[in-house]
C-alpha cells in the first residue's frame, strides 16, 4: 500500500473571515515553493483543506517539509485502496498501527459512492471489528479518540486517512508583511525572528559587524543563523553594517555609563534607515524585559525614542529558559552559543546605566557630531543572502 496524498488542515487561518483567501493562497504558494524539488507532487487548494497529491513521489521528505511550513495546523497521510472491503480494512489497520500502543481510535466512514454495497454505518462497525481483532492494545473511543481513522469511499477508489501530524501552526510566511530583525548572534534574536515568522512575517536581518573587535567567525555565525531561519520561510537578506568606526567614537566620546545606551540608539537609527530604504515597516528585536542593562523599562524608553517605527519584541515577557528551549527546537541554539564576541559584547562598560534618562542622553549626543561616521556605516553596508537551498552548495564540495 502506498500513500496517495497528504491532507493539510489550516488551523487558525480557517477562522479568518473575508481575508481567508489571502492567507490560504499565500500558504499554497509557500507549500509549492517548499515541495518544488518533488516535481510530480501537485498542490490542490479548497476552502477548508489543502491536498498534496504525491503522484508517486516519496512522502517522507514532503512530510518533513510540512512540519516546518507556518500556517499548517496539522496534516495526515492518506492511503488509496481499491473499493474492496478487505483492502479498506487492511489500510485502516496499517494506519492505526503507526500510532503508539494505547492510542484510542474511532472509524469515521463516508460513502459518496452509493454503488458500494455496504453503507457507512455498517462499514464503521465492520472495519472497527476487523481492526480490534487484528491489533492489541488499541481501545475504541468514539467520543475523544486519539486517532480518527477516516475512510472515504469514492467512485474510483477509497481514501483512508489516519494519524494527525502536528504542523507548526501560525500564519503563512509572507502574509503579514516584512520586518527588519536585529540579529546579534546571541540566543534571543533568532528566536524573536522565528516567532515573528510564525505570525506570517517575512524577515530581513541587520547585523552590526565591528572588525577587528568582532571576527569573521562572528559574522559567519550570523549567516548560519539566517540560513537556519530561512528554512521556516523564504530566503533571508542580511544587512551587515560596518560598525567599528561609529562604535569606537561612541566609546571614546560618551561617558562610560551612557556609551552602551548611545550605541543602542545608533543601532536603532541605522536600522530604521535601512528599513526605510528596503520598504520595511517595522523592526524586531530579541529584547526580554530585565535580562540585561539595556533591556530595562528605562533603557527601552530611552533607546526607543529615536524611532517611531513599530518595534516588535516577541520575547519581551518570556523567561530565558523558555527562550532557550525554543532555540533548541529550531536548531539555532548550537550556532548561537559558539563563543565569539559580537558587537554587543565588545566595549561593554563595567557598570552600564540600567536607568538611563532621555535628557542625559540628549545632552551627551548633542555635543558631538556623529553624522559622518553614521553615513559611512550606512553606505558600507553589505547585503548577504541566506537561502534554504544554500546548504546544498556545500563550501567544500570539491574536497569532499
Amino acid at each position: 500500500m502506498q500513500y496517495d496524498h497528504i491532507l493539510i488542515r489550516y488551523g487558525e487561518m480557517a477562522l479568518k473571515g473575508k481575508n481567508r483567501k489571502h492567507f490560504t493562497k499565500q500558504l499554497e504558494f509557500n507549500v509549492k515553493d517548499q515541495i518544488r524539488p518533488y516535481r510530480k507532487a501537485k498542490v490542490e487548494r479548497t476552502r477548508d483543506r489543502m491536498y498534496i497529491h504525491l503522484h508517486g513521489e516519496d512522502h517522507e521528505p514532503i512530510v518533513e517539509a510540512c512540519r516546518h511550513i507556518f500556517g499548517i495546523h496539522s496534516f495526515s497521510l492518506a492511503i488509496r485502496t481499491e473499493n474492496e472491503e478487505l483492502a479498506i480494512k487492511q489500510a485502516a489497520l496499517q494506519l492505526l498501527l503507526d500510532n503508539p500502543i494505547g492510542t484510542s481510535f474511532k472509524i469515521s466512514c463516508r460513502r459518496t459512492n452509493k454503488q458500494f454495497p455496504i453503507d457507512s454505518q455498517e462499514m464503521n462497525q465492520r472495519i472497527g471489528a476487523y481492526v480490534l481483532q487484528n491489533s492489541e492494545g488499541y481501545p475504541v473511543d468514539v467520543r475523544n479518540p486519539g486517532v480518527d481513522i477516516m475512510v472515504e469511499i469514492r467512485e474510483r477508489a477509497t481514501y483512508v486517512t489516519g494519524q494527525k501530524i502536528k504542523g507548526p501552526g501560525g500564519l503563512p510566511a509572507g502574509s503579514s508583511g516584512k520586518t527588519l530583525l536585529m540579529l546579534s548572534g546571541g540566543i534571543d534574536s533568532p528566536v524573536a525572528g522565528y516567532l515573528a515568522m510564525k505570525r506570517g512575517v517575512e524577515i530581513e536581518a541587520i547585523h552590526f559587524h565591528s572588525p577587528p573587535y568582532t571576527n569573521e567567525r562572528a559574522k559567519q555565525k550570523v549567516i548560519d543563523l539566517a540560513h537556519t531561519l530561512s528554512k521556516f520561510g523564504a530566503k533571508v537578506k542580511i544587512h551587515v553594517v560596518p560598525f567599528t568606526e561609529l562604535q569606537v567614537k561612541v566609546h571614546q566620546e560618551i561617558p562610560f555609563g551612557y556609551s552602551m545606551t548611545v550605541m543602542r540608539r545608533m543601532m536603532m537609527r541605522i536600522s530604521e534607515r535601512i528599513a526605510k530604504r528596503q520598504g520595511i515597516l517595522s523592526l524586531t528585536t530579541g529584547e526580554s524585559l530585565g535580562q540585561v542593562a539595556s533591556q530595562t523599562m528605562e533603557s527601552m524608553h530611552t533607546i526607543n525614542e529615536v524611532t517611531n517605527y513599530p518595534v516588535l519584541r516577541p520575547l519581551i515577557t518570556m523567561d530565558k529558559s523558555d527562550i532557550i528551549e525554543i532555540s533548541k527546537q529550531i536548531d539555532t541554539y548550537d550556532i548561537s552559543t559558539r563563543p565569539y564576541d559580537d558587537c554587543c559584547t565588545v566595549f561593554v562598560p563595567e557598570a552600564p546605566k540600567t536607568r538611563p534618562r532621555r535628557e542625559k542622553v540628549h545632552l551627551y549626543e548633542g555635543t558631538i557630531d556623529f553624522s559622518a561616521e553614521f553615513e559611512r556605516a550606512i553606505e558600507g553596508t553589505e547585503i548577504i543572502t541566506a537561502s534554504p537551498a544554500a546548504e546544498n552548495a556545500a563550501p567544500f564540495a570539491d574536497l569532499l
Partner: protein
Amino acid sequence: MIYFDNSATTKPHPDVLASYTEAAQTYFANPSSLHRLGGSAEQLLTACRKQAAQLLHVGEDEILFTSGGTEGNNLAIKGTAYRKKRLGNHIITTAVEHPSVLETCAELESQGFKVTYVDVDMYGYVAPEKIKAAITDETILVSVMHVNNELGTIQPIKTIGQMLTAHPKITYHVDGVQGAGKVALDIKESHIHLYTLSAHKFHGVKGSGILYKDENTHIAAQLSGGGQEQALRSGTENVPGITAMVKALRLAMEELRNHPAKLFELKEKLLGGLEKMDGVIVHSPPAGAPHIVNFSVPGLKPEVLVHALGEKDIYVSTKSACSSKNSDASAVLLACGVPDAQAESAIRVSFSYENTQAEVDYFLQILKETLTHLKKVMR
C-alpha cells in the same frame, strides 16, 4: 599487480589523495586557532562532520574523529567500562573479534572486569540467543563485530540490537571496520550505541577513523588534553586525514549503492574456481560478506603460498594481518571448530570495488599452477 588483501588495508583512491594534499596544504592551520586560517580549517572540519553524519544517517554531534579502528575499539570498550563500572563489571563479546577488542577485554579482565566470550558456530556466526543467555545484572557492555575480518561472517547486528533494547543498562558496541562500505547497516535501526570505523579499509588514508557515539550514550575519555571532540578524544584534529576519510566514505557508499552486486560477482567467480581445485577447503560462510573468501590447502604452509603468489605480483594474506606475525593457527578458525591442520593453512582473499573479474580469472589460473607446482615439490 593484483591486490587481494583489501581487508588488511586498501590503496588510497587517487581522488582521496588529491583531497588529502589539498587539505594538508591549504587547511593546515589548527582548527582551534582564532585567526582566519584556523577558522577555515574549522569550517572544513565542520563540513566533514556533517557529511560523515549524513552518510551514516546519524547526528553531527554523534561523530567523533579518531585515529582508526584500534583507537575506536579501545575508546568504546574502555570508555564504557570505566564510565559504567558503578553499574556493573560484566562485558559480553565473541570469540572471533579483532585483537583490538579481545586484547582490550583481556586488559579489563586484569583490572577486575568479567568478560564472557560467546562461542560461534562453524561459520563464525554468533547466535543472538547466546548473547541473551550471557546477560547478567552486572552486564554493562556488549561488543560484537559487524563483519568478521578473517571469514567475512556477517553477524546479526540488528537482531542483537533489538534484543538489547530490553536492557537499557547495556551499551551496544559494534566494530564496523570490515563492514563499512561493503555491507549495508543502519546504525539507528540496529539500536547501536557505539560504532567503530577505520578510513584505510575503504580507500582512505591511514591514521583516521570515526567512533559513532549515540547522543545519549556516555563514555569516559581515554586521552587527556585540549578537549577536542567533545573532550572525548583530545588532540589536534587531523584535518587532512579526516577530509580524505569522509571523501573515501562517500565514494565507497556510492559504489555500494551503484554497483551492489559487483563484489558478489567477484566472490561467486572465485568460489566457482576454488570448488574445482583439489584439496581446497573454503571456510567462509555462503551468506557471508561479499568481499572476503577464506580457504585452506591442508598440508601446505600458507606462508609458502603467499610468497609464491607474491612472486607473480599477486597479494593475498594468511589470516588477519594484525595477528599473522604469530605463526600459530588462526584463532578465529579454531573458534569455529576448524581442525588445526586447516586452521594453520588458511589463506584470505579480500576484494574492494577496484578489483575486476579479469583479476579473479588470472588469480585462479596462477593459483592452480602454483598449487600443482608446490605439491610436486612438497612430495
